[in-house]
């Protein structure tokens, strides 16, 4: 075993341990903030696993999208919610936990049996000079339709975000009386009808 292989084995063990531990933490910890931070660690370990499989572009995309956007948004939402209410233990909480644990262990056993008994067509990881070129070729040949559909979907979402952000609100109409009104919606300025 040379230096590179040793580093790979050690990184695989470390990443797998990190992934399992952080995923368990996400599920088991009672503090939602800790769970959200551990979710980030979980995503990063998955990115590391992609990197070990020579999928560098997928790894970077995983970090950018899941850690940089999804996880930050989850954290953002958690920290913006300011709901202080005492934690009420659920009725029959322990029974629920036991049932959940049984189901999870059963799934785990089932999956491990499947993984160990299936004949995997293991191939050595071929080192491609540039994974991005390969990805691009796939996108424009055999995965053309999903790629185009996804791109149209993303474009629609992007333009929709811009249009939502460009709505003009009417902040100057105050509800009568100084007390907070129940209706917290902002009034939107009516659009001019197709004035071209």
């Amino acid at each position: 075993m040379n230096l590179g292989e040793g580093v790979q084995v050690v990184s695989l063990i470390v990443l797998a341990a990190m992934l399992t531990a952080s995923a368990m933490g996400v599920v088991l910890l009672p503090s939602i903030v800790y769970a959200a931070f551990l979710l980030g660690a979980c995503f990063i370990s998955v990115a590391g696993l992609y990197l070990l499989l020579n999928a560098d572009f997928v790894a970077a995309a995983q970090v950018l999208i899941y850690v940089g956007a999804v996880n930050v948004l989850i954290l953002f939402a958690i920290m913006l919610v300011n709901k202080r209410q005492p934690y009420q233990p659920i009725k029959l909480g322990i029974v629920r936990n036991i049932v959940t644990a049984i189901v999870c262990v059963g799934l785990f056993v089932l999956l491990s049996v499947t993984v160990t008994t299936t004949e995997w067509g293991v191939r050595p990881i071929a080192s491609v000079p540039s994974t991005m070129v390969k990805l691009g070729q796939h996108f424009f040949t055999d995965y053309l339709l999903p790629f185009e559909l996804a791109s149209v979907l993303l474009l629609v979402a992007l333009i929709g975000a811009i249009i939502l952000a460009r709505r003009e609100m009417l902040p100057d109409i105050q509800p009568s009386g100084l007390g907070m009104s129940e209706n917290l919606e902002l009034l939107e300025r009516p659009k001019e009808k197709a004035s071209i």
Partner: protein
Amino acid sequence: MGGIDLQRSLVEVLTGAGLSSGAAKAIWMPLPMILIVLVVTVGALVCTWLERKISAAAQQRIGPEYAGPFGILIPVADVAKLVIKQGTPPAKSDPLLYTLGPAIVFISVFLCFLVVPFGQNLLISNIGTGIFFVIAISSIAPIGLLMAGYASNNKYSLLGGLRAAAQSISYEIPLALAALAIAMMSNSLSTIDIVSQQADYGLLSWNILRQPIGFVIFVIAALAECERLPFDLPEAEEELVAGYQTEYTGMRFALFYGGSYANLVLAGMLVSILYLGGWELPFPIDQVGDMLGIAPSTAWWQIITAMLGITAILLKTYFFVFTAILLRWSVPRVRIDQLLDLGWKFLLPIGLFNLLLTAALKLALPSWFGG
């Protein structure tokens, strides 16, 4: 331009001295990492000194002058003070997250320097994802900021952390769109390829001439990502005391402080790599070598070009840093709603338009826009 290959030379020397090639590579591996950490730290320290001197000049003061010539030892005094200062976490803070937050910010900034080249072979690793890697890794930093803001158990910190996260995710998109237009022109995401594509005609082939809109978008978004004025909302003194760093002192504060200046240096390096030709001089140095009749493989010529290249990229980087500092001391801060408006309503549509324009020009004029 072949450039000098330090790794091969050192490995050859070590194997010549009787070591196996594996051991020689193991000895080589930590060297560039240590070197880059040192270089970036020194670069960040220089930035703090520049900040003091330029702010003084902008306000017609002298600035630091007693600590060493031109007060150049002030950053050393800063670091010494921060290192020996006692860390005082708030009583009701979350001790684990409180320490982890600054570490994440610092590490994510320093990791980005993995792909920043100082010359043809003078970088740690030329990975294919290059500039995309930088954008991906720098998107981790807001998690550290949110962590610090939450763990400090202070309303100003939490608001600062939230603002930092909002600002960073909204300005990441225009930044990525501007970089994407460059990648489209260079047919690669690798930082090396992006620079070598700008190498042919010196100043005339720099991307700033082909991508003026992208350059403006990138500079604005980079300033916002660095949380520099006019976009330093997360640490706006008048509103939020110091934002997410309110409760930090000592070494943990030093991580934030150093990280923010390292981020500024990183932004400057990215601007110079993407738009100002990286380590290329304003005139094509290879052709000068040809005219003087020097073979490109001559050792002393290679060393001279490498030196000139490092000087060039540092000059470009510090020009950006100088502009950022000058901006900080001359323009007022924007409001948070204006900041988000600028990002979502102005930069994002312009960035999309720029991408479309680049694609159209690439198809229409392939010889100029990297067909």
